[in-house]
């Protein structure tokens, strides 16, 4: 039961490792970036999970409602910023991959390495 109660954290750990594996093991640069995105998404889940208060609702103050339990809005705000950072990183990474393809004619890391060694 306690293990199931930590379901979100298990998903966080598994996603983190799936992403990390892709970054390390795949020579294809697009796949590396996909892995990086999964890796970052796992952290978003960690933040979103920790702000949930049992029985809590959205933190909006309404007239006539007192004693309402709210979920913590701060991690959500933080993760909104982190998502923007993640998108910019992915966009820049993809732009670099496009330029690598133009310059090398391949986006496989082992092939670009052997092309560099030939020079």
């Amino acid at each position, binding site marked *: 039961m306690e293990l199931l109660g930590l379901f979100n954290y298990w998903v966080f750990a598994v996603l983190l490792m799936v992403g990390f594996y892709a970054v390390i093991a795949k020579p294809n640069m697009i796949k590396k970036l996909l892995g*990086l995105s999964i890796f970052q998404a796992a952290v978003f889940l960690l933040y979103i999970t*920790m702000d949930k208060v049992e029985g809590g609702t959205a933190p909006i103050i309404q007239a006539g409602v007192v004693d309402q339990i709210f979920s913590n809005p701060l*991690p959500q705000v933080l993760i909104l910023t982190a998502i923007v950072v993640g998108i910019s*990183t992915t966009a820049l990474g993809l732009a670099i991959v496009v330029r690598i393809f133009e310059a090398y004619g391949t986006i496989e890391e082992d092939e670009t390495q052997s092309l560099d060694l030939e020079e």
Partner: protein
Amino acid sequence: MNLEGQLPALQIVVPLVIAPLVVLLRDAGLAWAAACVTSVMCLAVAVLQASGVLGGEVASYQMGGWPAPFGIELRVDAFSALILLVITGASTLSLLGGRASLAADIADSRQPLFYAAWLIALAGLSGIAVTGDAFNVFVFMEISSLATYILIAAGPDRRALTAVFKYLIMGTIGATFYLIGVGLVYMMTGTLNFADMEARIAEVSDQRPILVAAGFITIGLALKAAVFPLHVWLPNAYTHAPNIVTAFVAACSTKVALYVLLRFDFFVFQGNLEDHLIQFAGFMIPLALLGIVVGSAVAVVETDLKRMLAYSSVAQIGYILLGASFASVTGLMASITHMFNHALAKGALFLAVAAIGMRLSHLTLDGISGIARVMPWTMAGLAVAGASLVGIPGTAGFVSKWLLLQAAMEHGAIGFAAAAVVVLSSLAAVVYIWRIIERAWFGTPEAAESVVGVQEAPWPLLAVLWIAAAANIYFGLVPAVPLDLAASSADELLRHLP
């Protein structure tokens, strides 16, 4: 509302606001001038703040008027003031001297965009130094990193692209590790403000998430700081970036990550986590020593000038970490002073390399044979900066290395071993700097690329090179300012230790 109180905010806001305006300037020369003026303004703000800190005041600024633990606090103490001087100084000197060198590497139409990215990198790096909020550090770190990737990718050669892709992957993993660590600390303490975190973490310090957070944050920042063995992105990124960008990035970007590492570990964790000091030192001392040995050894056999100096940077990061992991006043002073002095020496060396790069296409030992006959001033500047990197008495490098040896001697057997490694590595530095100087002054020009007809580097680059070289000598003879700032930073960092 006086201007002095606004200085911490101005440090970030000025470059951040001017950056998009620079994009609108379609003329390369205008964009360069705007970037230079902005950078000089930032340097002026940093100097004002440093003089305030030397006078004993710590500037605190509440963003948007929200009081400290809830809102974002900007906080400038001695440590941040010193790092700000390094960042803005490196940016100003590289920009002022780098116009011609950058124009050779980057197409005219792209230069306004390039200078805008430069200013954003400057804003991000300064932001890390002034903020007192853990999440804010992450945001500024990513702002500066993304901009730095763009600067490096502007390199003249396609290998810059693969180098920057590797840097992007490793840098993002580092930043994400840091984010996980901050999340775990927030989960346990409910705060993101460094000072508040330090006070509240005491209650939960025996719980495992805090220990895990300490691990994630240390590893993540070590990746960003290129601590051995996480340095693999650094040599290629430095080698293939435009020469002037290398001078800027080598002088400050790894130091800023080390700054956050020291601030987090000493300020937040050391006083609260049981045995954290032993874990920190036990983890860092071997890595620092290995970094020093491997970095110096590779630099000795390397024949490409920029790659040689990049590996030397790996070794210098080792010195900085070694001093910090002794966790004594002398050790931290050595470490913090060395951040300043290494930025001076390595910045000047890379400026000299940029000057040679203006005239020669192959920056290798064979390529520069006999170059000093036609570029005596550049090579003399390189010799002075090299002397400072080696740590010859009378130059800035000597001051911090001497402190480092003193700190090592306080630590018994391990200290003696560490001191021996430092001395050996300094001898290695003599070897690799001498290889450059010997080829340049006494080598005969190779037939393949003759240096006959090559002229001295353009005067602006030569001028900033000599300003940097003169600063190496000045701070070697009169090291009061960096030492005072380093001493109060060391006190600040150590005040939570039993």
